C-alpha cells in the first residue's frame, strides 16, 4: 500500500517543488513513487493539487477519501480538498489566506471548517508557515516549513529530505530552506 500525500495550494506557491522534494527522497531510499502535478493553465494563480504516492506503482491520482496526509499552503485550498482525507488522515495547513479575486462568495471561516472535518483535534495541524519561514529568512520558504512539520509523520527519513532540499532548491537559497525545514520540524504543535 502506498502512503498517499496530497499537496495543495495556489499556483505559484511552490507546491511542485514540495512534491519534488518528497519524490526525490523516495528515490534516495530506493522506493517506488508516483505523483501527479498540475501544469499549464491552473498555474496562473489558480487552485493547484499535487498528488504524491510514496511506494506507489499504479496510477498517479489519490482517490477521494484515500489521502493519508494533506499538506496545504493556503487554508481555503485545504478546505477545497479536505474530502480527499482518510478518516484517520492528517492535515497540515498554512493559515495565511490568499483571497480569491472578484469572488462573490465570502472567504469562509476556514480554520473552523478544517477542524470540523477531522474526528480528532490532533489530526489538524494549522500554523502560520509564512511567519515561521520569515524567521528562517524568507517568507517564500513556507512550503519547506510545512515539509519540516510533515517530516515528523512521513514514512521518510529526515536525512533523505534534507539531502533532497539541497538538491532541489537553487544553491543560493539552500541555507534559508534548510533553516525553514528545521524550524518546521521543531515547531511546537499546540
Amino acid at each position: 500500500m502506498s502512503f498517499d500525500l496530497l499537496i495543495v495550494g495556489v499556483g505559484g506557491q511552490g507546491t511542485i517543488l514540495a512534491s519534488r522534494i518528497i519524490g526525490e527522497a523516495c528515490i534516495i531510499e530506493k522506493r517506488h513513487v508516483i505523483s501527479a502535478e498540475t501544469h499549464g493553465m491552473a498555474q496562473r494563480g489558480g487552485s493547484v493539487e499535487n498528488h504524491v504516492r510514496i511506494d506507489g506503482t499504479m496510477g498517479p491520482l489519490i482517490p477521494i477519501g484515500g489521502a493519508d496526509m494533506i499538506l496545504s499552503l493556503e487554508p481555503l485550498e485545504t478546505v477545497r480538498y479536505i474530502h480527499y482525507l482518510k478518516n484517520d488522515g492528517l492535515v497540515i495547513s498554512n493559515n495565511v489566506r490568499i483571497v480569491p479575486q472578484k469572488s462573490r462568495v465570502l472567504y469562509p471561516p476556514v480554520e473552523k471548517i478544517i477542524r470540523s472535518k477531522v474526528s480528532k483535534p490532533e489530526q489538524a495541524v494549522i500554523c502560520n508557515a509564512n511567519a515561521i519561514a520569515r524567521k528562517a529568512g524568507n517568507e517564500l520558504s513556507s512550503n519547506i516549513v510545512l515539509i519540516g512539520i510533515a517530516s515528523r509523520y512521513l514514512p521518510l527519513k529526515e536525512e533523505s529530505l534534507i539531502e533532497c532540499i539541497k538538491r532541489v532548491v537553487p544553491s543560493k537559497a539552500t541555507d534559508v530552506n534548510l533553516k525553514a525545514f528545521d524550524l518546521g520540524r521543531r515547531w511546537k504543535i499546540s
Partner: protein
Amino acid sequence: MKKEEIIIKKFLMGNEAIAQGCLEAGIDFATGYPGTPSSEIITSLSISNERNVYVEWSVNEKVALENAIGAAWCGLRSICVMKHVGLNVAADPFMSLAYTGVKGGFVIIVTDDPFPHSSQNEQDSRRYAHAAKIPCLDPATPQEAKDMVKYAFELSEKYEIPVMLRPTTRICHARSDIEVEKFQIEDLKPTNQRFVKIPKEKRVGRFFKDRDRWVLVPSNAKILHRELQIKQKKIIEDLNGTPFNKRVKNIKETKIAVVSGGVASCYVKELIPNDIPFFKIGTYPVDIDRLGEFTKNYEKILVIEELDPILEEIVKMSTCSTVLGKYTGDVPFYGELNQNIVYDILIKNGITPVVKYDLKKPVEGLPARPPILCAGCPHRSILYLIEKIFKNGIYTSDIGCYTLSPFSVDTCLCMGASITIGSGISHCDKRDVVATIGDSTFMHTGIPGLINAVYNNANILIVILDNRTTAMTGHQPTAGTGQNIQGESKELSLEKICQACGADFVETVDPFDINLSKKILERAKKEKGVRVIIARHPCYMIERKQNVEKAYYEIDVKRCTKCGDCLDYGCPAIELYDIKPIINDLCTGCGVCSDLCRNGAIRRIK
C-alpha cells in the same frame, strides 16, 4: 553463475521519461510546437547534452511534422511532438504518411488531455491513428511510456512506418521512479557487464530518390495503399509479442471480465480482485482474434477507458457477449477517470473492489479560484482598453494566456481563429470587430487569416499581443524574438509581415503606455478595412529575468475615494483590505493602475 542486476533510477516526469527513452534509442532529430501537456518533451531534449540531437520549435504542428518527415526520409531517427489538437493542424501530412512510410525510425508523440485541463476539447488521438493506419502505443505509466518509445523506433524501422505514442496528461505530468540504466554484473567480472546507455555516435542523413515512393500521385498512392494494408497484419503480430498487452488471468469460471487501457488500467488494477479476468491493452491495431479468444469465455465484458469508446468498439467486434461501457452508460463519455469513478463502476457491475475508500463529500459553496492573468501582465492593459474604447464591439480571441482575461474575449475556438472568425463576423454584423491574437499564435496560423482578411475586404481590427514568448505553455521562444531553441536566430518583424500581407494600417505600441495605446486604438476605430496594432511588451515572466529595475507603487489612503476603478482593472496585486484597496507584494511595478486612477491616489514610491 551469480547474476546481479543493477538498476539506476531517477525521479522523472512522464515527458522527461519519454525524452530519456528517445535519447536511449539514439534519436537524431526532434521537432514540435508547444502545447500542454506535451511541451516538456522537446524542452528536455534541448537541454540534454548526452547526445547531439537537432531540436526545433517549429512555427506550427504541420510545419513541425513535415520537417521531421524530411529527417526520417533521410534515415534519421526522428520524433515530432504535439498536443492532441495540434494533430488537427498536422492532419494533412499525417493522413498520408503511412502510405510513403519512412526510412529512419519515426515516432509521432501526441498527448491527449482528458477532462481538458489545458485544452479546448477532449478528442482522442487513437481515432486519428486508426484513420491513418498508423500503429499507436498507449502507455499506462511513465515507465511504460519510456519503454514504448524505445520499442516504437524499432517497430517503425522494421516496417518502415511511422508510429504514434499517445500518452495522456496523467502520464505526461506524472512523476515516478524511472529506470535510466540497467546492467548485469555477471560473475561480478567487469568484462561481462551489459549496459543500457545513450549511444553517442551520430547518424548521417541522406535522402535517396525514389519517385514511386516519395511522390504521392494517384498511380503511386493506389499501390502504396495496398502495401500498407498488407503490412498491418505483420505489425499486429509484432505488437502481440510486446509486454504492453497483458492478459492478467484467464479464469473461465467467472461471468464477467474487464478490458482496459492507458492510465485507466492502473485504476482498474488497483481495485479489482485477483479472480476477475483482466485484459490490459496498450497497442493498436488490436489483434481481434486474440482478443476474441479471451472475450468469448465470459458473458459480460466491462470496458473501462478514457475518452472515446475505442476499445469498447473493438471488444464488440471480437465477441457476441454483452459489452458494458460508455454505450451502455456504465462508463462516463467525458472527463477523466479516477479510482473513485472506477470503484463505482465495478460495484455497479457486481465486482467488489479490494480497496475501500472513506466516503467523503466536498465542502460546497466555496469561493472559486480560477486561473487569472499574472500581476503586471502586459495583456491586461490593452485588453482592458479595447473593451473601454470599442464599447459595443465584438471581441474574437485566440489561444494563449489572454484567454484568461475578463475583458475583450467573446470567442476562442482554435489556434488562429480570432482573425478568421472575426473576418466572417465583420461581413455579417455591423458592429466593430476586434480580434486579439498572441505573437506565437499569429505565427502559427494567424498569417493566412490576415492575408484572407485583406484579400476579401474584411472590416476588422487585429491586435497582436506580442509578449515576446509562448507564455501559456512555459515560455518557449517564438519566431519574432530573435531566439530559437538552439540560441540566436533571425528576428522576424511582425510589422513587416503584416505589411507584406497587405495591411495598410500597422501601428506598434507599448501596452503599458496607456495614453498612447488609447490614442492609437481611437485612431484605428475611425478607420475601415483591416487594421493591425502590435501591442508589444514582454511577458512579466520574461522581463523579470532581464533584470530591469523594478518600480514600487502604493495607494495613498488620503486620496483614495474608494471608487473601485483599480479593482475593476483586476490586477491580483490590488486587493481589498477592509474597505480600501491596497497593493500587495505581487506588484511588478508596471504602473498601469497608477495611470488609471483618476484621483491620482496610486503613486510610485521607489
